[in-house]
């Protein structure tokens, strides 16, 4: 995406020449920002890099599903610690969708994978070519089909599918490494957040805006878990849709909700200027309820009792968000965006 890099260059130049920068922020904001960036985002970016390197190495040595699956879980776990940060290098170049193309409402992934395999499409031969392949054959959800779906998982060593699986894992690690480099560079996104208006590549005009952006990620990620990870499989009472659960083929639907809640809790703890007892209690309760489901792929959404239990988790997330607004947002003086939360 040429335009994005051009944007960064012009932004750097124009900001250097213009307007007074916002005044230095009060200590609580400054500290919250520093904690959230240094103790939450940087470790999460690093874990995803390490986990995808492991996945790529394992797959390089032996591409068969039985061998790759444990490393797949490690990589997906790491992604769940990062995927809520829809910002900077993570959302640049369409990376979020290239890493995790879900929901795939129109069944693009199996259709496109089948096409590539039938045509023996040569994009798997070089990383550069694969980086430009359809997002439907890249990332964790294409890999899930290849490893866990019986339409795809019966491939042999050195087959086209084997090379495709290796290409997907290399591509994942390539993106993870790029994210890490762009996050941690001296003029990288961590500095964009920390230094705000004085950053080498400014995007936020003040530290308050940086904190606001991180807080928005926190709340949006919980809302997304409620609406998508919970909301899609439970559907309506008359028409539950367990087949729409996220990552159900790999049996990760429940685990992903737990990991997302844990990631949100970590971010909230780092942002919170003081104690957050009600939020802590709500996180603990919601995570415990999810663990108690004992329903890895949310198949239970198909019967009324199981569906109700999953629905209750969504209701708990709503309550949790209220606690976070009071214990994290309010003391920091930030709230969801004026226009983004209430458009017209």
């Amino acid at each position, binding site marked *: *995406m*040429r*335009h*994005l890099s*051009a*944007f*960064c*260059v*012009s*932004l750097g130049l*124009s*900001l250097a*020449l*213009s*307007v007074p920068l*916002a005044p230095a922020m009060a200590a609580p904001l400054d500290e919250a920002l520093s904690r959230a960036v240094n103790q939450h985002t940087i470790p999460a970016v690093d874990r995803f890099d390490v986990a995808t390197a492991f996945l790529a190495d394992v797959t390089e040595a032996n591409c068969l599903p039985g061998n790759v699956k444990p490393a797949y879980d490690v990589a997906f776990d790491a992604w769940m610690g990062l995927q809520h940060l829809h910002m900077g290098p993570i*959302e640049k*170049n*369409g*990376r*979020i*969708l*290239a890493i995790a193309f879900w*929901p795939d*409402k129109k069944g693009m992934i199996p259709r496109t994978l089948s096409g590539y395999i039938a045509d023996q499409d040569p994009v798997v031969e070089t990383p550069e070519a694969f980086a430009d392949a359809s*997002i439907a054959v890249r990332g964790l959800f294409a890999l899930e089909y290849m490893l866990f779906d019986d339409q795809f998982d019966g491939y042999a060593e050195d087959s086209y599918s084997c090379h495709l699986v290796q290409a997907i894992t290399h591509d994942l690690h390539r993106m993870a490494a790029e994210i890490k480099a762009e996050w941690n560079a001296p003029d990288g996104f961590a500095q964009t957040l920390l230094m705000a208006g004085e950053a080498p590549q400014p*995007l*936020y*005009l*003040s530290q*308050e*805006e940086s904190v*606001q*952006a991180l807080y*928005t990620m926190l709340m949006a990620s919980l809302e997304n878990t409620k*609406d*998508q990870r919970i909301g899609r499989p439970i559907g309506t009472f008359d028409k539950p849709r367990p087949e729409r659960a996220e990552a159900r083929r790999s049996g990760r639907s429940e685990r992903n909700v737990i990991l997302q809640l844990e990631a949100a809790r970590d971010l909230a703890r780092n942002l919170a200027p003081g104690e957050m007892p009600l939020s802590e209690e709500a996180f603990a309760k919601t995570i415990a309820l999810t663990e108690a489901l004992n329903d890895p792929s949310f198949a239970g959404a198909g019967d009324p009792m199981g569906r109700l239990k999953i629905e209750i988790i969504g209701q708990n997330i709503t309550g949790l968000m209220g606690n976070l607004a009071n214990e994290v947002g309010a003391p920091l003086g930030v709230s969801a*965006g*004026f*226009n*983004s939360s209430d*458009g*017209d």
Partner: protein
Amino acid sequence: MSTRRNFLKAALAATLVPRLSWADAGSPAFLGAAKDTNGDYALYGLDAAAQILFRAPLPARGHAAAAHPTKPEAVAFARRPGTFAVVVNCATGKITHRLDAPEGRHFMGHGLFVNDGALLVTPENNYAEKKGVLGIWDRAKNYARVGEVATHGIGPHDIRALSDGTLVVANGGIFTHPDIGEGRQKLNIDEMEPSLAYLSASFALEEKLVLAPELHQNSIRHLAIGADDQVAFAMQWEGDETEVVPLIGLHRRGEEVRLPEADLAEQYAMKGYAGSIAFAGDGSEVAITSPRGGRMHRFAPDGSFLGAVLRGDICGLAPMGEGYLGSDGFGALLALKEGMSPLNAVPGLAWDNHLVALPSLVA
């Protein structure tokens, strides 16, 4: 004494007031509504460098404004389903008239002066009959309501004029009722039929554009007019939020509509929502903003995607210079084109959905 005072008042009204021009308001280039840290709403006038020239308090949350073509007068509309609009004298910052929607109608947040500023037209919802109307108000009669015509669709929102006086109305297609869900609950999502209606200067329907059936939940909401009367419209998707749909349309009367998109990942990142639309000041391109996606998408008039500019909560957009002026909920006013540079940042001021460029000052 009282007679003399009345005489003076009449004399002032007859001679002084009509002479006021936009220069008396400091020649603002833009109008925008915002909420301040006290929770108060106001209409602000901005100069060409995005500095605040005046502030006129509003009784409640605003949405967009209509600027008179020559007089320093703007009409600020309550956001839907508000029933008031106020006429602000931009030279004094005072409210000079208040418009109340008639019984059974409410405003949609937009309006337009027509007939060289003699009439104000306001998209409204006639909720008893489930149809959209334009209210017509006569400026010379102290903004008395003098008529009403159909918009030929439900939920009319934005309205613009072409160079020959033809009116373009964005019928958003969404039905709401003031008594249900604070008046903003969408009651007909399954049966929506948004449209772009072209009305003659005498308000007769001349052409109506309706999108393909699979896009019937794509609410046509906001409008911008480009070179040679190209109509650009911004949409808000009311269907499944995971579907990736076009959010901008480009149309000329009698031609096929174009619905360009960015590449899949960028398009998805807009979150099915375009809040504002504007042509660049030089007319070379058109852009839509998504506060939910935190980005602006730029397109050439032929529909090719030119790029994205990232900025959280960005919404208001107006032509400025060779590019755009944008606003957000964090108080920033930004010069935008390939990149962005802040022109003004007012902490605590949350700019509302729209910026209005004053037509007399834009080429």
